[in-house]
């Protein structure tokens, strides 16, 4: 069936917006060629697409980007964490601002360097996990990313890596349009923590592919930058081996448009994956979490916890699916998405889905949307807590269920401090 012209034109527009990659041979060239073809055959996302029914992709496709308002934190998140810093400025890797690419138990290369080398594991990850994640639902922005990305990191962890690798996305140019692609493999028995923070660019497209081998562990904590006008579309594609573990948490405050997709597939038995997100939006804020978990192995556990606090006309979206294939017996799948609306102008749209073909599984999902608990608010204020502060305490408590999904307590506290500061600024 031929695609509507708007979709094919949209795809061409997207490709034309980015310079062609400099390395076009070897595994990279192959991945780029296939990705380009994928994008052209599925076309650009459109409002009419079922998968984009709650989020208008126009801001991601339109040639003109609105200038973003730059906001900088005095003390950046994760500042106190002992970590390996990898800095990107408007999507370009900055060797000067970054630490040396050397850390025990891990091999790190800049994507553009890796592209001209024959690194055999990368050819099984780069663009490959993304391609796997294109069915049953198309993710055109991720295909675009693979087709044009020149920046990012190629990371292979071979042991328990002692310090987190911290990607810092600095945004300086108020009309930058950045594409970053990370390909990660955590080898058998190894463990790795990735931190990400910063607004990255006026418009940001990021893909992170992660292969978590048998008995390996991958932790991910992200704080998306708080520039008001920034637009971001991000994808995480993860494939999990036997007895492996994945934990991913994202904090989002501000941003005119954010779409975070997580595509997780269990390939080995007895593995577990937790994805969580806390989002706080005020005003012109649209935040979309789209998650797809595929259970294709026995006795795996997946957990999704997504919380959004919305006010002054902000919109929150959650699309979450758990697909349990026929052989994935003993699957334990859980999904909760909740919106807390601080006024009548804001909205939370949720589409939770379960699709189960195995018979011996325990899956549950829930989605709620409500206002602040007046009884609790009265209790707090009756003790002398000012109303605005009392409301913030309840908001923090609401979001905390997502924050508790963070493995490391110090990182969780860091995230809490971010949120508290954000709310305190709003109280003035």
């Amino acid at each position, binding site marked *: 069936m031929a695609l509507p012209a708007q979709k094919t034109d949209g795809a061409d527009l997207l490709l034309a917006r980015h310079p062609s990659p400099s390395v076009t041979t070897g595994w990279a060239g192959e991945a780029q060629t296939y990705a380009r073809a994928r994008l052209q055959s599925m076309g650009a996302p459109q409002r009419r697409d079922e998968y984009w029914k709650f989020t208008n992709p126009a801001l991601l496709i339109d040639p003109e980007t609105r200038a973003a308002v730059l906001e900088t934190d005095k003390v950046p998140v994760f500042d106190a964490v002992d970590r390996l810093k990898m800095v990107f400025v408007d999507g370009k890797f900055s060797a000067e601002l970054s630490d040396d690419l050397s850390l025990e138990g891990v091999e790190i290369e800049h994507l553009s360097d890796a592209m001209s080398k024959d690194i055999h594991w990368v050819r099984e990850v780069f663009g490959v996990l993304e391609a796997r994640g294109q069915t049953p639902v198309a993710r055109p922005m991720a295909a675009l990313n693979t087709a044009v990305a020149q920046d990012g990191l190629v990371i292979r962890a071979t042991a328990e890596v002692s310090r987190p690798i911290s990607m810092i996305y600095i945004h300086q140019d108020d009309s930058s349009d950045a594409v970053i692609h990370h390909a990660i493999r955590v080898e058998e028995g190894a463990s790795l923590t990735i931190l990400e923070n910063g607004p990255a660019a006026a418009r940001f497209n990021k893909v992170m592919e992660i292969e978590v081998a048998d008995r390996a562990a991958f932790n991910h904590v992200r704080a998306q930058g708080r520039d008001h006008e920034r637009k971001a579309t991000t994808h995480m594609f993860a494939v999990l081996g036997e007895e492996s573990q994945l934990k991913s948490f994202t904090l989002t405050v501000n941003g005119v448009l954010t779409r975070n997709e997580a595509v997780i597939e269990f390939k080995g038995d007895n593995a577990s994956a937790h994805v969580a997100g806390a989002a706080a939006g005020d005003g012109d804020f649209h935040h979309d979490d789209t998650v797809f978990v595929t259970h294709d192995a026995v006795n795996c556990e997946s957990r999704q916890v997504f919380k959004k606090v919305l006010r002054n006309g902000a919109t929150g979206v959650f699309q979450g699916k758990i697909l349990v294939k026929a052989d994935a017996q003993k699957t334990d799948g859980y999904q909760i998405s909740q919106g807390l609306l601080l006024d009548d102008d804001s909205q939370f749209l949720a589409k939770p889905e379960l699709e189960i073909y195995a018979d011996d599984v325990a899956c549950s999902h829930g989605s709620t949307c409500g206002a602040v608990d*007046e009884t609790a608010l*009265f209790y707090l204020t009756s003790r*002398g807590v*000012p109303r605005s502060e009392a409301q913030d305490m309840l908001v923090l408590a609401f979001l905390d269920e997502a924050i508790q999904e963070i493995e490391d307590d110090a990182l969780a506290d860091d995230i809490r401090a971010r949120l508290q500061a954000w709310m305190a600024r709003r109280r003035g």
Partner: protein
Amino acid sequence: MLEIKNLHVSLEEEEKQILKGVDLTVGAGQVHAIMGPNGSGKSTLSYVLSGRDGYDVTEGSATLLGEDILEMEPEERAAAGLFLAFQYPVEIPGVGNMTFLRTALNGQRKARGEEELNAAEFLKLVREKAKALKIDADMLKRPVNVGFSGGEKKRNEILQMSVLEPKMCIMDETDSGLDVDAMKLVADGVNALRDAGRSFLVITHYQRLLDHIQPDVVHIMADGRIVKSGGPDLALEVENNGYADILSEVA
């Protein structure tokens, strides 16, 4: 201290009048008790005084130390020295007891233009007060009232009262759900707070608490009014004979 005059209150949502002209004056340093049948409006009075939403004051006034409190926000009333120990303390998952109490105390101090307590000073203060009420440190670390037993919740109310040191303490059935020893602890806590500059309004169904906390005046509330006031003997009379005699006498 607290002066309530001809207070009429109805529900905001439905045309239902609950308080039908309450008159009550609690002098500085005094302890007053309110007894009365279920549904007579005791809790409503305590909520209206502390500023809960959902009620319309249609007539009358209430002042604390001469200040009209009915126009104030709940947190302003707290800063002015009012405290309500809830009949049903509220569970607030995700909000730590200590964070809550410290924010409350410093919120009040700030509103009064006093110096805020730092974390160490606050911790010391709470530990001291908690010890007296036999509240263990683990409980303090938990979220507000979450997973507390009925009696623990009530003790937590008194802990908050001891830390906040209000001038006018309203206690709504703090004794119900307490075992004999806990009742003694709570009463000791209250007695330790008794002071010429602090008053108590104790709502209770039982004489027992009043054995430990000697009231100056006992009021009987029925159908939204104070129908009778007297000395401690009045509580004994209720304990022995119920409300029938008193109610028929005033009818």
